[in-house]
Structures are given as structure tokens and as C-alpha cells.
């Protein structure tokens, strides 16, 4: 198990290395325009000034060397300075990371809280009205792009019904947790709605496999109630494969969080990333890339550990 964990961490680090290298190389191809962004709109630069700026930013070095420098700085804890805002990338990200963590965390919580039981119940009686209803719900989640769900929800719940706030994390001058939760519900539910179809599908098929197993009959023969049989024995045993399947969805949840953050004006790193890409703000893009890759891979490793805890057959391998 320990050796397996080391292998996972090593491969996660390699994956991070490749992601950042790929994105760094891609960004270097549009570097010129970044310099234009930095130069400010309309400000004319002489050829000499341009060269000086290029040199100052180290843009005259070959790409691989610049990447190595960037990596070296990252390892020293220096993510560089944003072209756009002129302040250290680390500070910008630190300010906004919490908001994103809250949003994505709530979204994943809602996804599991609703998706798992719905999928389990669908597997309990395949072909039933509940099963068909849940697969319709799942399909709706798959097929509606996040931005359309956002717009429709804001239109209905914020504008027509006036139930939910359409913007931001707080009302002005109100920092109470209740207000925060009020602002959090709609965006996190929208992200969850997009991911829930996948969770329903995965938990349904994992439970279908498990529900045929004899140990559910054993559990019934012991005299356990149907709820205990389904959740304590059925879902509990299916949980390990379900969780690994859900892992695949985490990057997509982060991606859809970016769009939702942008529409709701949620001050997180997703909307920061979208703005940074639009502004060609290379240090900022790289910083957020690093954070996202890191979070996804940490989630990966945690889930691997959870798998071991949930399924003893893996632990004793």
C-alpha cells in the first residue's frame, strides 16, 4: 500500500509537470500579444523599448529555459507578478482560492448528496418510474450547458421569483454566514446539476452489480431492514468503484465552476483564470494552472486512499 501510494504521488507530480509544461509552451506562442497587453492600449513602444521589455521579462530566452526558470521560481515559492495587476500572482490566488474552494466543495457535496441516493434507488428497481425519472434528470444535466442553466436560473429565481441573489458572494455590507449560504446555493446547485447525471449513472450501474450479490440476501436473512440492506450493504460496497468513477469528473466540475463563477461574479480562481486567459496574463494563467492541477491531483490521491479504506481487498494487496 505504501509503495503504491508513492507511485501515485510520483505519477501525480509527473502529470503536473506535463500539464504546466504543455500550457507554458502553448502560452509562449502568444507571448507577443502579452507584451502588448503590458505595454498598455495605444501606447507606442519603440523597437529598443520593446526589446528592453522583452529582455526584462526574459522573453528573449528559449521556451524550455524560461520554463525551467519558472519551475525553479515556483519551487522557491515565487509564482511571479501578474502582467495585468502588477501584484504577485500568489497574493491574487490566495485572496480568491477560498471562494472557489467553498463553491466547488458545496457543489461536490450536493452532487454526492443527491446523486448517490437517486442512483441507488434507480438501481433498486430498474425500469421503474423512479429509474426513468432519474435518467431523464441525468440527461437534462448532461445536455444543458452550464451557462444556459445559469442564465435560466438567474432569470427565473432571481428576476422573476426574486428568491435568490444573482450576483456575488455577499450583499454589500452584509458578511453573515446566512447571506453567504443564500448566495452560494444557486451557483453550487447549478454546478452540481451538471455533474449529477454522471454520478447517478455511475452509482446506478455499480449498485446494479452489487444488488445481485448474495451478501445482500445474507443481510436480509439476518433480519436487517430494507434501508439497512440497501445502504449499509449495497451502497457501502459499491462506494469504492463509484468514487473512482467520480474522480474522472473533478476536472470538469472545476471547469464548469469557472463559467459559473464568471456569470455569478463569484470572486474565485475560475473566473480569475478566464480573465487571465483573455488578458494573456501569462504568470497568472500559469499560477492558476498550477493550483488547479495541484488540487485535482490531491483529490486523486485522497480518493486512492479512500478506495483503500473502503475496500479491504485493495488494502491487503
Amino acid at each position, binding site marked *: 500500500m505504501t509503495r503504491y501510494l508513492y507511485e501515485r504521488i510520483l505519477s501525480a507530480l509527473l*502529470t503536473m509537470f506535463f500539464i504546466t509544461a504543455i500550457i507554458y509552451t502553448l502560452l509562449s506562442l502568444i507571448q507577443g500579444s502579452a507584451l502588448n497587453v503590458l505595454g498598455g492600449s495605444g501606447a507606442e513602444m519603440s523597437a529598443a523599448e520593446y526589446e528592453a521589455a522583452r529582455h526584462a521579462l526574459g522573453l528573449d530566452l528559449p521556451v524550455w529555459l524560461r520554463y525551467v526558470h519558472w519551475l525553479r521560481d515556483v519551487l522557491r515559492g515565487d509564482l511571479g507578478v501578474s502582467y495585468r495587476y502588477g501584484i504577485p500572482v500568489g497574493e491574487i490566488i490566495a485572496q480568491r482560492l477560498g471562494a472557489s474552494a467553498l463553491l466547488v466543495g458545496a457543489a461536490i457535496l450536493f452532487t454526492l448528496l443527491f446523486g448517490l441516493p437517486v442512483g441507488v434507488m434507480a438501481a433498486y428497481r430498474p425500469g421503474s418510474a423512479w429509474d426513468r425519472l432519474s435518467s431523464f434528470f441525468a440527461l437534462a444535466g448532461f445536455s444543458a*450547458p*452550464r451557462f444556459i442553466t445559469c442564465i435560466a436560473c438567474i432569470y427565473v429565481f432571481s428576476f422573476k421569483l426574486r428568491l435568490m441573489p444573482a450576483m456575488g458572494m455577499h450583499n454589500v455590507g452584509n458578511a453573515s454566514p446566512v447571506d453567504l449560504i443564500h448566495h452560494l446555493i444557486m451557483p453550487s446547485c447549478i454546478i452540481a446539476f451538471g455533474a449529477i447525471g454522471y454520478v447517478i449513472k455511475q452509482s446506478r450501474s455499480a449498485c446494479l452489480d452489487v444488488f445481485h450479490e448474495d451478501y445482500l440476501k445474507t443481510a436480509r436473512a439476518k433480519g436487517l431492514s430494507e434501508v439497512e440492506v440497501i445502504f449499509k450493504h449495497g451502497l457501502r460496497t459499491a462506494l469504492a468503484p463509484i468514487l473512482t468513477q467520480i474522480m474522472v469528473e473533478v476536472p*470538469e466540475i472545476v471547469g464548469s465552476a*469557472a463559467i459559473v463563477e464568471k456569470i455569478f461574479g463569484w470572486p474565485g480562481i475560475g473566473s480569475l483564470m478566464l480573465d487571465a*486567459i483573455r488578458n494573456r496574463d501569462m504568470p497568472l494563467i500559469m499560477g492558476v494552472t498550477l493550483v488547479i492541477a495541484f488540487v485535482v491531483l490531491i483529490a486523486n490521491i485522497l480518493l486512492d486512499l479512500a478506495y483503500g479504506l473502503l475496500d479491504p481487498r485493495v488494502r491487503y494487496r
Partner: protein
Amino acid sequence: MNHRGFWNKFRQSRGAMIGLCFLIVEALTVYLLPAIFHMDPISSDVQAGFNAAPSAAHLLGTDGAARDLLARTLCGGRVSLLVGVAAPFISVSIGLPLGLAAGYYRGVVEMVIMRLSDVFMSFPSILLSLILVSVIGPSLGSLIAVIGVMGWTSIARLVYANVLSIREKEYIDSALSIGRNDFEILSHEILPGVLSPVFVSLSFRSGSAILQESGLSFLGAGISPPQASWGGIIFAAQDLSVLTRMPWIWAPSGILIVLTVVAFHFVGQGLRDTLDPKMTV
């Protein structure tokens, strides 16, 4: 199964037939109507006004540049359908050979290809696509290319899993033992077994390609204005007053995106049920 048998079985699936009919009608509408009625999605009709509500002259109203929204919605449909049909073929042309190679040769080839797909899959595809589009510049061609390239992982994984299970079968051993070379085995023995799941997944990939296209266009990284696309039309709803007061601008395109994706999904399900209900795609 011959073509006739396939079609007769496919016809039984009600959802798939509804989806297919919807897509055919939609394709005919978006390609023929604007041509027949000489609709103009580009020029402004200043007399009708900006962001005008639906009227007899402009059945769906006008957008922020006083352009006819019906014409723009129809022409936007062309973009979505084109991306939906073209991008999956790019995904397959990259993913199929890589998946075959990874599954057949194993070893280093397998490790490199599957690791690479891990790298792609561990980063949000929408962000990577945005960066790619910024690099090559937004246009219809680059949208199709980027979405197509980003889709290679799911095809490669699908092919890889199928090749692994086919390899287990004994007829591969018997083909090897009578001295067939790798190319013959791949093309005669393995490829046929892999093609039907790939064929089914094309339809599902079409749906997700349309979703990605609309997302990129919504973020302003789609085809460049003044050309229309559904996501681009909804882009206007980022303005809160458009969102809240002028639903006619964004609602038709939004509904069409969802319906088109659902239609592709139903067709995919119908194909799967027809070919092999137990197939995982």
C-alpha cells in the same frame, strides 16, 4: 447484421427516431431557410432598433447591433451542427490509432499514450480549449480543430479498453500462430471489433462537441463576430439587463442547444441498443 436488419431494429427505438427526425429537420431548416428567404444575419436594421422585441419584421427580434435574430439563430445552427459533425471525426482520427497502438503493443507505447491521456483528462477541458483557441486564433476551423483534438482521450480510452478485451480472445493467438503480421491482425481481427463502439460514441461525441462549442463561443472565444453562433448569441446575456429583460435574445438559442444535444444523445442510445445494449461507451 446487414443494413436492412440494422435499420429495422433501429426504427423500433422511439427516442432515437425522434432524435434523428429532429436533427434532419433542424439541418434542413438552418441550411435551406436562410437561403430561400434571403435572410441576412450580418447587416443591421437600425430602423427596427437595437435589442428590439419580436415583431412581424423580425420574428425573434433583433440583437444589440440591430441584426435579425431569426437569421442569426438559423445561421448559428449551421455552426453548431458543423462542429458537432466534424469535430468527432478529428477525435476519432487521433484517438483510434493511438488507442489501437496502446492496446495492441502494450509496454512503453501503452504507458506513453495512456499517461498522456491522463494528463489531458486531469485538467478542465474548457480551460485548455480556451488557451488553445487563443494560440491559434478564433475561427470556425480552429474551433473544430481544438474541440476535435480535445476529444481524442475519450475515443482512445474506449478503443484501448476494447482492444484489450479482444486481445484476450483466442483468435488473435491463432492469427499470430499462422504468421500474420501486426498490420494484418490489427486491420482484420481487431479493428472490426472496435469500430462499432466508436461508431456509437460518434453520436455522443457530437453532442458534447456542440456543448463545448457553445461554451467557447459564450466565453467570447468562438467564431469571430459578426458571424453568428448560438453560444455567441447568448454571450449578450452576460449583460444583466439583457438577461433579465430580453429573454427573446437568449432563450431560442439556449433551447436549441439543449434540444440538439438531447437529440444526438437519443440517437446514440438507439445505435447502442441496436448494436449491443451492453456496450459501454
